[in-house]
């Protein structure tokens, strides 16, 4: 197994600030916008972006939710191992809101497809955008593209992209792992 670092913590820091600024350009004071972190790993990116918006740009009223897509996946009974559910926590209305999905890695696009179905259980948003830290651009199974991307990478299918977060894994880093 080989492990190659793609982004270090300084690069991630710069990218997160850029993504936060791009969100502000499009959503101004976030009055009609809600951010949704996709479980399990998108929530760390979403929380980080919210804290940047709050601390560096004084936007304090950003609504942040967590969406679990387990029951909406299209690979139920098609995977070797059972799928474990995570927590959904959306205590606001998404009806008539601009929703921004936030996930760490965009790969096949199937998680986002499931998230698009799942969010309908909470109402009908005006529009939905997608923000990802890493876009594996040649791996898509579905016609889904991000509106905001941290870094685009070309990775072959045998390789895995892993995002580590300070809060969860001890330090910020993105690795390409070859099994």
């Amino acid at each position, binding site marked *: 197994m080989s492990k190659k670092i793609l982004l270090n913590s300084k690069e991630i820091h710069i990218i997160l600030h850029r993504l936060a600024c791009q969100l502000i350009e499009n959503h101004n004071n976030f009055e009609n916008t809600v951010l949704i972190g996709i479980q399990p790993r998108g929530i760390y990116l979403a929380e980080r972006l919210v804290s940047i918006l709050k601390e560096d740009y004084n936007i304090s009223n950003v609504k942040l939710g967590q969406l*679990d897509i*387990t*029951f*909406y*996946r299209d690979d*139920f*009974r*098609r995977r070797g191992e*059972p*799928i*474990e*559910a995570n*927590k*959904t926590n959306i205590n606001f209305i998404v009806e008539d809101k601009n929703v921004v999905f936030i996930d760490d890695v965009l790969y096949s696009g199937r998680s986002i497809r499931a998230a698009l*179905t799942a969010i*309908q*259980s*909470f*109402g009908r948003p005006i529009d939905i955008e997608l923000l990802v830290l890493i876009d594996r651009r040649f791996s898509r199974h579905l016609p889904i593209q991000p509106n905001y991307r941290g870094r685009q990478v070309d990775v072959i299918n045998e390789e895995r992209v892993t995002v580590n977060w300070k809060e969860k894994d001890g330090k910020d880093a993105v690795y390409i792992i070859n099994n």
Partner: protein
Amino acid sequence: MSQLSVQHLLGIKHLKRSDIDLIFETADHFKEVINRPIKKVPSLRDITIANLFFENSTRTKLSFELAEKRLSADVINFSANQSSVKKGETLIDTANNILSMKVDLIVMRHSNVGACDFLSKHVDAKIVNAGDGTHEHPTQALLDSYSIREKLGDVAGKKVVIVGDILHSRVALSNIYALKLQGAEVKVCGPKTLIPKYIESLGVGIECNIKKALEWCDVANVLRVQNERMAINYFPSTREYSQLFGINKQLLDSLNKKIVIMHPGPINRGVELTSDVADSGQSIILNQVENGVAIRMAVIYLLAQQIERHKQ
């Protein structure tokens, strides 16, 4: 490990502690789902479920059907009193005919003990026992324990008394297995004629005085007097039963603590519980009904996870 250790849900007796924890954890997620504006998930859209009710039921059947529909499964229903069973068809023939229609999972209630176990050995489908005679009613016991956990934080260490007709009750037996497995202390309380002789071998105490039983417990799970299962008279009169084993407001107020009142329904109001007790703040009867849907969604979801795709 997030998979059940069993292939069918035939009874609590076959489950491990980790299975119960997994079912509860999954039910937590489904409880969140059923409180959303749109209470449905698409997980089981390629699964067909047959509800075979050879014995009358209202809430269990509705609860299962709702759980199945909220998971997006296709559902077919069967009631014995309107079917070819009346013409003499055997259980295996009935089940095999239904399975020929490509059914993946069967939820069955039957008046004979072991009917689900028997069927599981003869047909190629997942079986969920929705009550077999006086034997087991596993989903009811799971939802009862889940409701206790929700109300009191944990089942382990809690004192639970099961009041009423223990002899004819599948709810009592499944509850005893489930509660003991999770580390609760269990006593039964009822007329001696309605307490089976073997009960103490399950690690369960007997208390024939309702006041003493209630003083001891944290939770009273009160069962219905099953007149339909009694071929002979086990106690002199319903009036005497309600005086000796019925729970009323006065009795509850005489305890120096607030115990939790449960009942699997349907209640014979004025017999097992008076209305002011059934509708009081101490009663979690309606929570049990709500939790029933989440628990049944969890059980069906976890069993469906094991169904191989090539069967389709």
